[in-house]
């Protein structure tokens, strides 16, 4: 509302500005730009959030020969690593990750567990003196000529002490031989390992982090050689893999990459079926049926068979092997290339897996690609496990097992579909958009959980998504701040991992999309980020900058609040004041005064009873004077003249406003939670129509705590609701209504809803 001086004088209200005190002249404004928190743009990473003109990344190519010992549950391997130094720097040494050493008996991951006597349990006692002989056994590290190469192992990291520094643009090739005992995943835990099926005496191996892997060297971290303690996952360079895996003859193997010796490994019927699958885009085709798998798991054949896989431009390699596997596949057609979606599962996974797994893989690729880019790899595989969900390039291990009798609950079904979407989705974040997981869990888990939510909603209407919508993060955000950390916290130091690294960033993305930026601007910018950093290593600021730069929205306040602080959203309607326009017309003004006076006078009990009273003055004319006939509620001629002069000075717009006779509301908003957010209001007017008003967060830009704003309506307002569509994650809705309205608690909702059920819980008794 922009009122002229004249008109402003007419409105009977007092207006004052509240300025917030800024302590010690420091800028605590929530809209302060993020320059101090994020890295300065440079030749490697631009201020727009894109890779800079001198961006580089080093590469590691692997050639590996691996043997699985099914009798001893042990893996032996020898690998050749070709490391390409694309950086401008000279490297005196190389760092390699030995993730299996996390399970070595002297591992730090056991030592750093905290807790007193009252936190003891069987696993923590076992972890004090672990009896599993885990960890890598490095048997040889050599140069290409076979000479011994100097190295130093420090816990989960190994340094190759180069004979001479590796210059920029040079390549270094070397060999490592190793073996380790595979962990029983169900007893010891872990992202990989084996599951033993007692009934048929078989093992199902899901194998990952199984070989010494190169660390990333880059412009932000130097070498990312932060120890693997178990929580912060992996940071890996891209490269090409050529891997041969020798397993028992009757095993079926699933792995990252394309099977290049299918003709040697599979029989002619299996080859035919695989070909059929490459042309089937509606239904999966079985390459190994359940019947064949059951036959397979009964007998143990002697000897080994070598499966040969090749994968290009991947950051890691995972595989799975068992004689229990059923195998199905279908094709997913994309504009740029066809992809084979596949599943490997034992009979224990059915009937869920044959019906849902491969189709869920296919759906995930379609949905994620829409928001990012076409899936660039030839295969996408879902392998059945008990419980976990864990991702690797092109392959992931997913839980979701029906009961032994083949029945399953709806919860198990949706849990399984959700976990497959999530793990297949990890192909995009972080396998292709290759962020530093050891440093920032949220960069892959948060963004992936966000797209998981969108993909679940595209799977089925009303899909029971656990995370995504704003209102689902409320319980976490209103919690005890001593146990909450900002999203921008290193992976190992996070409180409440699931909420912090998955739920909150996913919700923040969804709020950006639905409320702050809108779907069109967000989707474009998010796609830009994804394509800029496809097959590259982005940092948090690259995401922040890309979303701003591609949308023309300054989001520094949003990153500051949602990613760098533990503030929550709680905006309250502090007060609502009602005003009518008073045009100062002395005639109507005085009439109003009269009505007001009479209303009070007539209400008084004594005045009512005295109505018929015969008074002294009424009976004695001698008591009359000037004031007997004077009407204080009648405008004088002087007053009327003054008003007419004033009216003559008003312009057309001002006269219209007076004529409209609007209802004005001055609303005071208080920011209790600390996070600044848009103010979204639903006004219900006297005729039950609604006025929806959305004010951007910038309304808080000069005063982050208290603001007031005027609203004008033709009708009077019956009710005001703040955040009517639950889009801001407001943690306390009891202050979101005018007039005040108390929303029932979860407990009350349940009790009320079930009261009727409970009273008729035993209808037989009533009948008696």
């Amino acid at each position, binding site marked *: 509302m922009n009122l002229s001086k004249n008109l402003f004088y007419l409105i009977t209200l007092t207006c004052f500005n509240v300025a917030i005190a800024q302590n010690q002249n420091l800028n605590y404004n929530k809209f302060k730009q993020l320059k101090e928190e994020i890295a300065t743009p440079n030749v490697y990473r631009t201020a727009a959030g894109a890779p800079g003109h001198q961006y580089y990344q080093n590469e590691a190519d692997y050639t590996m020969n691996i043997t699985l010992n099914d009798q001893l549950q042990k893996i032996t391997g020898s690998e050749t690593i070709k490391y390409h130094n694309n950086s401008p720097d000279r490297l005196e040494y190389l760092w390699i990750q030995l993730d299996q050493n996390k399970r070595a008996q002297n591992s730090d991951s056991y030592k750093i567990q905290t807790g007193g006597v*009252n936190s003891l349990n069987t696993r923590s006692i076992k972890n004090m003196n672990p009896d599993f002989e885990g960890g890598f056994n490095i048997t040889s590290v050599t140069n290409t000529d076979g000479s011994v190469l100097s190295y130093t192992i420090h816990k989960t990291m190994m340094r190759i002490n180069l004979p001479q520094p590796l210059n920029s643009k040079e390549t270094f090739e070397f060999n490592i031989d190793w073996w380790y005992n595979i962990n029983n995943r169900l007893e010891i835990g872990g992202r990989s390992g084996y599951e033993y099926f007692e009934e048929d005496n078989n093992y199902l191996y899901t194998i990952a982090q199984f070989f010494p892997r190169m660390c990333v060297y880059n412009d932000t971290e130097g070498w990312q050689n932060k120890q693997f303690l178990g929580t912060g996952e992996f940071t890996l360079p891209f490269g090409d893999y050529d891997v041969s895996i020798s397993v028992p003859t009757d095993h079926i193997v699933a792995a990252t990459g394309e099977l290049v010796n299918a003709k040697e490994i599979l029989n002619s019927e299996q080859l035919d079926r695989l070909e059929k699958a490459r042309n089937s885009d509606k239904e999966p085709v079985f390459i190994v049926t359940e019947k064949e798998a059951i036959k397979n798991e009964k007998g143990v054949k002697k000897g080994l068979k070598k499966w040969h896989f090749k994968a290009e431009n991947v950051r890691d390699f995972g595989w799975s092997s068992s004689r229990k596997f059923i195998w199905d596949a279908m094709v997913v057609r994309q504009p740029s290339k066809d992809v084979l979606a596949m599943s490997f599962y034992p009979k224990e996974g059915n009937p869920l897996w044959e019906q849902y797994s491969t189709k869920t893989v296919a759906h995930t690729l379609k949905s994620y690609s829409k928001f990012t880019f076409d899936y660039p790899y030839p295969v996408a595989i879902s392998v059945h496990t008990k419980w976990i969900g864990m991702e690797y390039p092109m392959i992931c291990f997913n839980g979701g097992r029906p009961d032994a009798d083949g029945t399953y*609950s709806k*919860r198990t079904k949706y849990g399984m579909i959700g976990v497959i979407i999530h793990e297949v989705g990890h192909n995009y974040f972080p396998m292709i958009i290759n962020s530093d997981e050891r440093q920032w869990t949220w960069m892959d888990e948060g963004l992936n959980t966000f797209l998981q939510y969108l993909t679940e909603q595209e799977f089925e209407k009303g899909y029971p998504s*656990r*995370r995504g919508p704003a209102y689902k993060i409320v319980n976490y955000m209103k*919690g005890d701040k001593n146990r909450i950390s900002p999203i921008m916290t290193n992976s190992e130091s996070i409180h*409440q991992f699931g909420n912090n690294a998955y739920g909150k960033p996913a919700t923040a993305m969804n709020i950006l999309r639905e409320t702050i930026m809108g779907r069109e601007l967000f989707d474009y910018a998010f796609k830009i980020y994804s394509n800029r950093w496809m097959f590259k290593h982005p940092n948090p600021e690259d995401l922040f900058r890309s979303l701003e730069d591609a949308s023309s929205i300054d989001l520094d306040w949003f990153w500051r609040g949602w990613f760098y602080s533990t503030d929550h959203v709680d905006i309250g309607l502090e007060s609502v004041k009602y005003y009518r326009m008073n045009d100062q017309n002395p005639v109507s003004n005085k009439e109003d005064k009269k009505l007001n006076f009479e209303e009070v006078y007539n209400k008084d009990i004594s005045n009512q009873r005295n109505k018929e009273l015969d008074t002294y003055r009424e009976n004695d004319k001698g008591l009359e004077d000037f004031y007997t006939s004077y009407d204080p509620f009648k405008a004088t001629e002087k007053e009327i003249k003054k008003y007419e002069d004033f009216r003559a000075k008003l312009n057309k717009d001002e006269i219209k406003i007076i004529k409209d006779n609007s209802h004005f509301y001055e609303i005071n908003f208080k920011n209790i939670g600390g996070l600044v957010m848009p103010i979204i209001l639903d006004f219900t007017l006297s005729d039950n129509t609604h006025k929806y008003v959305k004010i951007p967060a910038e309304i808080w830009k000069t005063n982050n705590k208290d603001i007031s704003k005027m609203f004008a309506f033709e009708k009077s307002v019956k009710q005001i609701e703040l955040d009517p569509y639950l889009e801001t994650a407001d943690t306390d809705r009891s202050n979101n209504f005018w007039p005040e309205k108390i929303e029932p608690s*979860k407990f009350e909702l*349940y009790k009320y809803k079930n009261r009727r059920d409970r009273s008729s819980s035993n209808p037989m008794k009533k009948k008696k």
Partner: protein
Amino acid sequence: MNPANIHETYVSVTEIQLKNNRDLEISIELTAHDFEYAYNKEYNTTISTRIYPENQKEYYNEKILFRYLKKHFIINAQTDTVSLKIIGHEINLEGTLSIYIEGSFKNTTRDFNIYNDMLVRQLPNQQNIVNLKSDKNLSFTFNKNIKSHEFK
């Protein structure tokens, strides 16, 4: 990795409303899968859900919940231990188990103690958040090392 959908989420949220400084209305939300895992380990058993035929919703035998909460979720004020009554529970499709409980103090009070060590023995990363609404809003997070807290 996905600790959320099928594996442990490690967080419970309890909402408590204290009315008239005497009556407690409580809802506890746990991940059903985590609860089953912890319960099975603790009592060396295998619990399963049953299904209501009319609405296909899952539920547990309520005795299981009673037995568990009696030991792992305790409220008392000075000498006054509240006997908590489970009025019902639900398991939704996202895998959240909600338990609804009521109880009353004998004497009116504003201060009371909560002992909460749900799931922490089996899931060392479990955090149990309790949000209290009385004349003020309070929040506290329990974990394997902090099992008891005085709300005042």
